[in-house]
């Protein structure tokens, strides 16, 4: 789990910053802070007010209202204007945001959040507990798919006073604390949205949140401008005068803009992986790979467990043995990934690496296939299958082609289907595929993001990103269910460890990569990535030097 792009100097300054920020009052009930408190006070430099940060945005989201649009692009843009109750550190411990402190009852059924008293909406109205109730009980469940699932666990929600919210759950659900990330549950103004048609509310043209930056203007196809919110509830913040999101459709142009200093930040898939080594060698650019701990993206080759020969565990294991995941990590993703050991990304809580290992071993792969009775024909082919493509970038298509080649070497002949991304996702949702690629996000807790891919109750034809491989194992269902409801950390660990061992033995899908999207930051910008949300956080502490 070592992030080998750590720079000692950065580590110390980051630790110092983290330590200093958590010296603020009101942390009752929250766990202790993130990084070790090494070098407290030895900050590299003092934050300065001023400056405007330019961030690459590609492609442009359709709308910026976070509750209505949680595509990955909007998760970059909108959290500068909206706030959630919590944020999360690199180790996924919850940290205060709009909620300055919180208590969880010992039985795990009652969550009490104490809200910031001075928070205001961008139109000047005060932020109160009523907004929280409106958001989580009324608005989000109607428009926000993930929130609907998260808040379906809530039996009741009340506001004993304007700055306190109490959630009572139906059953204990420790994953609930992870429901309050800004994109998962952005706080929306009741006085604007209550009783209206949320999707067509005229206020959608100028988003109103409680975040450190206010919406200023949006030139479609060109730039989104935001300016400092002078009434932001954290005093003295934000340091920046404003933030701009610059739309640059072409990959090479994005690179040029970053190199020349016209933009200060490129993230996720803005830069092709093969260009990152060059960027990293530039003195003015710093490449960061932390900041995806909350999302913890995990890519796998999905196999339709209900079709032959993929219904046989031995076939799926053979596929795992046939893939050189180190090659994929190093030569296709240029080192910006880790090889996963199983269904839970190594940065997520309750990860357990103590499982069966699948190193590249073509002999073993062929032996398993022979054992199954899938012998090589005169043309060397054992079986013919179809593979859905990932036509979103050349890096991903190279991965598709690599998998095709690797499987061919053990006699599995794979034809890449000619389809676009939308059709590919649709066919995945409809269970109409042999093999396809899925990248899923964990959202902090296995109960939230991981279980949904492997439990029988989430096999729902017609809906993508559910248990589309249709793996069904009653013991796995039991374990996930118990772990979601258990209030005891060590018990949860035990349960998740067992489920990881079972899944790794059964290989419902072939896990390929724990993605580390490179974030390229101009060194003039500081404290950009300070939490497990990375660039999807509020940027209220980012400051700029000359």
């Amino acid at each position, binding site marked *: 789990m070592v992030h080998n792009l750590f720079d000692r100097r950065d580590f110390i300054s980051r630790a110092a910053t983290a330590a200093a920020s958590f010296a603020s009052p009101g942390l009752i009930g929250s766990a202790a802070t993130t990084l070790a408190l090494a070098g407290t006070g030895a900050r590299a430099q003092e934050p300065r007010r001023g400056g405007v940060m330019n961030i690459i945005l590609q492609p442009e989201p359709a709308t910026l209202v976070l509750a209505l649009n949680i595509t990955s692009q909007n998760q970059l843009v909108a959290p500068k204007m909206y706030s959630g109750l919590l944020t999360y550190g690199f180790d996924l411990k919850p940290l205060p945001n709009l909620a300055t402190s919180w208590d969880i009852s010992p039985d795990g059924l009652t969550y009490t959040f104490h809200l910031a008293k001075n928070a205001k909406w961008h139109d000047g109205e005060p932020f109160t507990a009523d907004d929280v109730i409106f958001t989580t009980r009324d608005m989000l469940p109607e428009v926000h798919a993930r929130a609907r699932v998260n808040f379906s666990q809530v039996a009741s929600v009340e506001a004993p006073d304007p700055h306190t919210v109490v959630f009572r759950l139906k059953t204990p659900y420790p994953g609930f604390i992870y429901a309050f990330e800004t994109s998962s549950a952005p706080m929306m103004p009741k006085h604007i949205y209550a009783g209206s048609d949320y999707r067509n509310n005229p206020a959608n043209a100028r988003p109103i949140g409680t975040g450190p930056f206010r919406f200023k203007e949006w030139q479609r196809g060109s730039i989104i401008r935001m300016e400092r919110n002078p009434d932001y509830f954290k005093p003295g913040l934000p340091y920046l005068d404003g933030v701009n999101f610059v739309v640059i459709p072409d990959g090479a142009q994005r690179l040029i803009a970053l190199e020349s200093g016209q933009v200060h930040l490129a993230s996720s898939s803005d830069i*092709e992986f093969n260009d990152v080594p060059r960027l990293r060698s530039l003195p003015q650019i710093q490449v960061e790979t932390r900041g995806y701990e909350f999302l913890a993206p995990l890519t796998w080759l999905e196999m339709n467990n209900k079709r032959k020969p993929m219904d046989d565990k031995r076939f799926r294991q053979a596929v795992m043995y046939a893939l050189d995941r180190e090659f994929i990590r190093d030569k*296709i993703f240029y080192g910006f990934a880790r090889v996963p050991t199983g269904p839970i990304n190594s940065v997520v809580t309750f990860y357990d690496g103590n499982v069966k290992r699948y190193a590249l071993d073509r002999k073993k792969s062929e032996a398993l296939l022979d054992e199954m009775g899938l012998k090589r024909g005169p043309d060397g082919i054992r079986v013919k299958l179809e593979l859905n493509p990932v036509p979103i970038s050349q890096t991903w298509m190279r991965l598709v082609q690599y998998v095709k*080649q690797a499987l061919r070497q053990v006699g599995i002949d794979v*034809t*890449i289907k*000619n*389809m676009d991304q939308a059709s590919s996702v649709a066919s995945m949702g409809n269970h109409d595929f042999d093999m396809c690629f899925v990248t899923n996000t964990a959202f902090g807790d296995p109960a939230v993001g991981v279980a949904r891919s492997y439990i029988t109750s989430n096999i729902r034809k017609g809906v993508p990103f559910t248990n589309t491989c249709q793996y069904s194992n009653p013991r796995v269902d039991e374990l996930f269910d118990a772990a979601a409801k258990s209030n005891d950390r060590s018990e949860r660990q035990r349960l998740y460890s067992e489920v990881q061992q079972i899944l790794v033995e059964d290989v419902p899908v072939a896990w390929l990569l724990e993605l580390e999207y490179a974030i390229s930051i101009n060194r003039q910008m500081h404290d950009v990535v300070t939490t497990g949300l990375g660039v999807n956080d509020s940027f209220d502490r980012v400051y700029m030097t000359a």
Partner: protein
Amino acid sequence: MMAIMHRLFRHKGAAFGVGVIALVVILAAIASILYPDGPWEMVGGIFEPPFQRAHPLGTDGLGRDVLTSIVYGTRVSLLVAFVSTVVAVTVGVLVGAVSGYFGGRLDDLVMRVTELFQTIPSFVFAVVLIAIFTPNIGSIVAAISVVSWPPVARLVRGEFLAIRHREYVEAAVVLGVSTLRIIFVEILPNVVSPVVVLASLMVANAILLEAGISFLGLGDQNLMSWGYMIGEGRSTIRDAWWLSFFPGVAVVATVLALNLVGDGLNDALNPRLARRGRA
């Protein structure tokens, strides 16, 4: 026939063109013998530069040999270009013959339709058709055929209009010869020469269209084509120029050869139209 061939080969450009085409056809035929493992195998290190013995034209991002891919690419180019041209010429001849022979309202209607197809920007139309009918080798061939037939129809129609009223045709009509016989036996043979010239240019154009379509990512994902290679090389053009360069040279050479052959055929088959200095 011999005279025609003789005139063709006197034309230096055409001789060169025939040579290149012959090479392309031979490579397409023996590709599996030269490189039995196919173009998709990862045979070398990634991004190996060209001009070395093992990989004369370099390798790509997955270690695939560029020369192997170019050789296999001949198959796709020839297949697509040849089949689509045959289809387009067939359709065009039929449409043009009917329109030119019968004239009148039918001719008007057919010409309107032809004009419609010629007004729509052909590359965009082909791209839209392929996108809608899902990219695969069949839809690509069909789309190229759909946008290529109008010039043939126009040409054939023009010829038919001219020949229709010649004495020997009128005579045949008076004698009661069936329409079909007249069209196929009396008139069509005279149309062959210009159509052949046009066909060679259409094959060239089809190769360019297919390259553009594959470049945009609409090609068949399981077939190695030159346009696809150029498109693939685009994102790494700074570090691996050879990935886009050599396939492009292959396209230029093949299309140029076809154009030269077309020019040569034009001069050979229509010597009365040859002008001073047009060689």
